Every structure is written in C-alpha cells, then in structure tokens.
C-alpha cells in the first residue's frame, strides 16, 4: 500500500435552507457531518451508501465543487479547502472527476474534440496540433475510434459517452480520479466494459480512485478498501475483503444482506429494516442509524459513536464494540 494521497479529516458539508419571509429561519441540511478517511496512492477506495447518505456530496466537497463547511481535505499534504481560486485551479489538474450520468455530463453542443480540448486549454496547452495529438492518443487509450473526433457527444451510446468522460478526466494525467457512480446509469453488459477499462487504466497509469457507488457488488469487484456511509457519517471503513466477509456495523450487515444474489440456489438470511432513512436536516442525536438498528440500545440514542479500530485496516463506528 502506497503513502496517503488524499486525507480527509472531519469533513463537514452543510447546506443552509432559508425559510420564512420576514424572519429568516436558517436550518441546515447536514449532508456530510464530520467524516474522515484516507486514500492511499495507487489504491481504490469505495465510498458506498444509499441515496442521500452524502457520498456524492463528499466527492464534490473534495474537489471543492461545493463549499465545505468544516474540516480539512489534504491532497499530498495541502489543504484544498484553504486554497485561493487560482491555486485551486492548478491543483484541480491532479484531481479529476468522472460523473454518473453520461448524458448530462457531456455538453451536447460540443464535439468530442471540443470536450477533450477543454481541460488542455484550461491548463495552458495552447498549441492546437499538440492538443489534437493528445486527444487522439487519449481516445485510443479509452477505446474510442479516432474517427469519432468530430462527432457530437449525443451521437454516442451511454458506454461510449462514459469513455469520453473518462478520457476527459485522464487527459491532464491526474493522480486521483473521483468517480461518482460511473456505471450506475449503464446496462450490465456495458457496465462490465467500463469496469474493466477502469481497472486497466489504473494498472497502466498508476491511478488512485475514489469510487463512489451504491452498488456493493461493483465496489467489491473494484475496490481495495471500502468506506460505508450512513446519513452523512462514516459507519465502517476498511479492507474490502474484511468488510464483506466480516461486516461489523449493523448497517453494513443489513446492506450486505439486502443485495440480491444472482444465484437461485444460494438462499440467505436477510435482515429486513423497518422504516426509511431519517431527514439529514434533523439527524438523531446519537448514532445516525439508531432509529432503524435492530441492535440499538440506550447509549446509541444519546452518544455519537466514533470510529474505532477493530483490526488491521478495519474501523467501525458502533457502540456494540466499545
């Protein structure tokens, strides 16, 4: 395992919500409420959780696409949140994003060349020939036919579009790729193509991935380490195999048991949760999962559990293990 590339410390992202006409009551949506994790160089960290748990917001907060409320985002030791606008622009070269919706993430009015030239232009590659050369090379890398260079984004299918999105992220030779549900919108057969491509690229370029996904099977397949989020907080983090084989947090256990297995011969005991995820505006005072947890006890209501080390590279935030 390499040295830490990205270090997120107690990150908080709150969105103010204004209400009322005269009296401005401001409440906060606590999308991310104090999470910490590390991504080491060359590894893939999977960030999983259900919708609304704050995993996508975390990704956007790391790249400063949304302002962070509190905490530090250290990229190679520099706190990104404290950078000036121009410093941030330079820093962004090292940290690129791949987005979920391959339809919305590419401007339909631009050609492949325009889309891929944009990061090069933004980071001072002024020579048109040079740009063209790098674009064509990158198209080869992600498996796009070079002859498509003049085509518009919306002429492509979902899988091809996602390849363009990946090419855009890679063209500046970043070290860290933050991939926000890159395969969620794709069909199974296309999903496999993209997952394989991501694996190949990681090997070829020594990339580090922060892989955000709700699909536990995909995370299991791709990631070295997994971080499970629930309602803006970290529930469990650690080595993928350890977590999948021995989930400690009741939420992780539920999540794993809920995944349908594509084998009719394999029947398993399922933990069915009651109720829905509570609102992030008014999360429980103690453990975020307390309302739905089958193993909740008194302490869980009052005291917020902190991440504690259970094993080598396996941490859990649950009072059961105090």
């Amino acid at each position, binding site marked *: 395992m390499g040295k830490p590339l990205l270090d997120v410390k107690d990150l908080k992202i709150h969105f103010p919500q204004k*209400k*009322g*006409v*005269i009296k401005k009551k401001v409440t906060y949506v606590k999308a991310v409420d104090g999470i910490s994790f590390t991504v080491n160089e060359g590894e893939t960290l999977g960030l999983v959780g259900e919708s609304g748990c704050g995993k996508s917001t975390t990704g956007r907060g790391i790249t400063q696409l949304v302002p962070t409320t509190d905490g530090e985002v250290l990229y190679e030791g520099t706190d990104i949140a404290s950078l000036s606008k121009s410093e941030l622009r330079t820093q962004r070269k090292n940290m690129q994003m791949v987005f979920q919706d391959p339809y919305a993430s590419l401007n339909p009015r631009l050609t492949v060349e325009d889309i891929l030239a944009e990061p090069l232009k933004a980071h001072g590659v002024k020579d048109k020939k040079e740009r063209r050369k790098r674009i064509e090379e990158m198209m080869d890398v992600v498996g796009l036919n070079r002859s498509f260079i003049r085509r518009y984004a919306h002429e492509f299918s979902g899988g091809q579009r996602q390849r363009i999105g990946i090419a855009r992220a890679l063209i500046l030779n970043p070290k860290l790729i933050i991939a926000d549900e890159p395969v969620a919108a794709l069909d199974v057969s296309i999903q496999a193509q993209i997952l394989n491509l991501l694996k190949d690229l990681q090997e070829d370029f020594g990339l580090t991935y922060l892989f955000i996904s709700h699909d536990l099977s995909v995370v299991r397949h791709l990631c070295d380490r997994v971080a499970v989020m629930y309602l803006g907080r970290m529930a469990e983090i650690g080595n993928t195999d350890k977590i999948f084989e021995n989930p400690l947090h009741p939420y992780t256990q539920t999540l794993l048991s809920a995944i349908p297995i594509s084998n009719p011969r394999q029947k398993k005991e399922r933990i069915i949760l009651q109720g829905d995820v509570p609102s992030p505006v008014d999360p429980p005072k103690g453990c975020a999962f307390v309302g739905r947890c089958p193993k909740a006890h008194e302490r869980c209501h009052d005291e917020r559990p902190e991440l504690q080390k259970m094993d080598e590279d396996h941490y859990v935030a649950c009072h059961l293990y105090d």
Partner: protein
Amino acid sequence: MLQFVLRRLVGMIPILFIITIISFLFVHLTPGDPIRIMYGAEIDQETYQTLREREGFNDPLPVQYGRYMVDMVVHGDFGQSYRTRADVSEEVMRRFGYTFVLTILSMFWAILIGVSVGIISATKRNSIWDRAGMVSTITALSIPEFWFGLMLMQIFAVQLGWFPTSGAASPLHILLPSITLGFGVAATIVRFTRSSVLEVMREDYVRTARAKGQKERVVIWSHVLRNALIPVVTMAGLQFGFLIGGAVVVEQVFAWPGLGSYLIDSILSRDYPVIQALILLFSLQFLLINLIVDISYGFLNPQIRYD
C-alpha cells in the same frame, strides 16, 4: 394559511414603499413644473414664487415625501389633480369600478374560452380542431387590441348596429370592450392550457389511472385537469396585469370612463398626483392578484405548504 396570507401582506409593504418612492421622485425629476401646470404658464415670477411656497414645493424633498406619505396613509388623501383640482381619491374611486368590471368580465371570457378551447385542442391533438385552434390563437396574439376594438366597433356597432359604439350608458356597452380586452388573454390561456394538459397527459400517474381501468373521460377531467390547471391558474393571474395594461388602450378606443383613459389623460397633461395614485393603485392591485393566485394555488396543489 391565515399566517401565510398575513405574512405575504406584510411582505408587500416594502415593495409598495419602494414604489411610492419611485413614483414620488417621478414628479420631482421629470421636466415640467407643477405650478405652471396648475396655474398656467403665463403667471409672473412673483406669483410663481408665492404659489410655489404655498403649495409646499420649496420644502426639501424628504419633507415633501413625508407629507405625501402622511396624507396618503393617515388620511387616505392622494392630493388634488393639478388639472381639475378635483380630489384624486374620489375621482379614482369613481372610475375604479368601471375598470374593475371591465377587467373582470374580460377575464371571465378569457378563461371560459381559453380553458375550454385549450382542453379540446390538447385532447384532440393534431386534429383539425387543434390546428384551427392553434392558428387562430397565434393570429389573435398578433392583433393589436385597439385595432381589434375598432374593427369590432365598425362591424357590430356601425354596420350591423347590434351594439352601441362607445361610452358606458348601458350594460350592453361593456360587451365590445370586454371582448376586445379578453381575446388576447384568451389566446394565451388556450396555448398555455393546451401545453399544460399535454404535458400532464404524459405523466406516469395518468398511465396509472388508465391501468386501473378508469374511463378516459374521467382520466382527463379528474386526473389530468386537476394537475394541468395549477399552472394555468398562475398564468391567468399574471395575465391580470396584462388586462390592466390592455384596459388603458381599450378604454381609449371605446371611450370607457375607467382608470385607463384617466391615466393617459393625466400623463398627457402631466397631472402628477393622479399618476402617482394610479401607479400605486395598479401595483397594489397586481400584488393582491398575485397573492390570490398563490392562495388558490395552495388549494389546487396540496404539496405547497405555507411555511
């Protein structure tokens, strides 16, 4: 609900306040001297100064504004017309009824025709009715209402003699002006209703209703319309503003003794107290209509909560 209405009413105050400032400054920044307007251009310098002092135009602007506001808020006094020396509030009240009746009746036509034609167009999409409806609405939107009024007058009043040409002597007099005023809004409502109904007909819950085995008629009249009319109500409310504006023109054509012709006369003769009062009245009217629209919106759409 009541709280919401109160809060909205209170929220209107700053806007009205800004409007009073704007309309007040209007008088003092526009060319044209009120004294000369009131007493004629020929008065000598000395009389001029005396009058100016007497009418209070020599006081600093904030003092004048304060006096204006106190008169208005405390006494409900909007001053006197420069031109006729008549009490503005009385004159406005007398004419308000005419404009009010005219706009209400126009809106009635517009909604009656607009919504029904819009629904027919949408449900019989691409039929000959739909096409005819669309062509006539876009034509209606291209006709200046004053010209339409003149043509109506020419045909129905002059040639056929069915209706009186102008004035407000009998209930029959309102017919042509209200149709003239309403037809443009009707066209807008037709187009809006049509697209709104078409949009709602594509919604998943309409498919759900059909999957329940519901009759198409009920699907349209209950499931579709209830949802499609929510934006139509908003739009129709906003069109009230358009009607108030249009009334200015139409009243002129048909010599309808409402606020519109009063406004034009006052502008042409720079009768500022009247202009001030009317601007304020029109704004207030518009804000109130918006409020009513918002409230009715809440009745139609349960999702809008007033908190």
